[in-house]
């Protein structure tokens, strides 16, 4: 009985460990560098020790005479090092503060022509198949359904429902989202739809037959459809996928907004 319980606990612990490894490896972009890192951590102490021994033996004659000078020098350097570390910490604080302020300034300057309400994301969808978000402003702040939501880099989505203090946003990466867009170079109209394939990508459909679309083209909202105003940056063409039937060919658009790191948005109140 005791043995069975012990085995069960061991089984659970092993499962948790395996789960942690799966999560780490499945989300890591550089598995090789992880192994390299682990290997170097294993080998480096031995390597350092051997190098130290080698140096000590080769410089044996001056070892005892230099030791007092080195001690003093070491103390001075330690003192300097702690002073530098202190100022580095202060600089880092100033830098992060500066970045946050700059982000806000950029947002309002870039979209100065629109009347906007700033908001924070307070909740994200818990499903793997839809990508809606909730923000901390609602009808009390003048938010209404179908208002456009943007971020510093570009289009985020539109408001689908509002309460007094919150609003639900359907992001452009949601599979039920369709945005009428145009290419900045040719002014051709395309439709960008959310896809399950990638987190920060859209599928551009109804691409014109001619070869007017190229990788890297900027994609903007066309103003058609009645929700999004014209000229808001959506993203860039990542690749064009050609199919046997020319009308079925599509392109992958990399969204300008990084939805994983998104936490501040602006709601345009005068579409």
């Amino acid at each position, binding site marked *: 009985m005791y043995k069975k319980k012990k085995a069960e606990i061991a089984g659970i612990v092993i499962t948790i460990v395996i789960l942690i490894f799966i999560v780490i490896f499945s989300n890591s972009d550089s598995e090789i560098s992880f192994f390299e890192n682990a290997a170097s951590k294993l080998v480096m102490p031995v390597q350092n020790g051997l190098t130290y021994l080698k140096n000590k033996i080769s410089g044996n004659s001056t070892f005892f005479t230099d030791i007092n000078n080195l001690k003093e020098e070491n103390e001075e350097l330690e003192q300097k090092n702690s002073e530098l570390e202190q100022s580095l910490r202060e600089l880092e604080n100033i830098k992060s503060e500066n970045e946050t302020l700059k982000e806000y300034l950029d947002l309002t300057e870039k979209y100065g022509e629109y009347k906007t309400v700033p908001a924070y994301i307070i*909740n994200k969808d818990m499903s793997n*198949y839809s990508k*809606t978000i909730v923000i901390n402003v609602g009808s009390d702040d003048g938010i209404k359904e179908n208002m456009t939501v943007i971020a510093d880099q570009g289009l985020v989505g539109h408001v689908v429902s509002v309460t007094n203090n919150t609003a639900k946003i359907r992001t452009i990466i949601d599979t*039920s989202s369709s945005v009428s867009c145009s290419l900045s170079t040719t002014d051709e109209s395309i439709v960008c*739809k959310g896809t399950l394939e990638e987190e920060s990508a859209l599928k551009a459909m109804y691409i014109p037959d001619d070869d007017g679309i190229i990788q890297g083209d900027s994609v903007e909202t066309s103003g058609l459809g009645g929700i999004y105003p014209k000229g808001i940056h959506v993203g860039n063409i990542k690749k064009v996928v050609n199919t046997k039937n020319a009308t079925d060919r599509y392109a992958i658009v990399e969204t300008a907004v990084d939805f994983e790191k998104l936490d501040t948005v602006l709601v345009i109140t005068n579409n």
Partner: protein
Amino acid sequence: MKKLTINIFLIITAFIIYFLQANFFNWFTISGVMPNLFVIFILFIGLFSNRITGVVYGVVIGAILDLAIGAQIGINAVGLGIIGFLAATFDKNFSKDSRATIMFMVLGATLIFETFVYILNYIVFSTNVEIMNFIKILAIEIIYNLIIVIIVYPLMQKFGYSIENEYKGNKILTRYF
């Protein structure tokens, strides 16, 4: 355990699951795919209490999810309600004493729930049909749910039988004879 205590315990658990799903599992993913703890939770309630409790919890929790984050009211409510209903059917036909059968039930429940929600989303919102991507995400989600069941199974059993004693009393073993 009295029924009131059980229900308070279940409501607190639902809140814990909500915050885990919204905060922890948002980044603790397998290839960007989260598990669905609500499916496991509703299945657990339906299995160990009774059909009505399972359906009621499924519909209420689903409706709260729809109101809190969902784009359309009703999809999660109906989906989780179905899971609550199915759980009682599972209970009548399978034993809960084995980890493997519980895992099999979770596999079936996740498959049914996500397929139902995906089809309903397609009908309501005309989403793009991406069968291969859907299957890929669903497969990872099922594996993730199964791993979680392996971990929480002793807890499920311990609290589950306390709930079953209260809800079913002396009717528990009748199906075995």
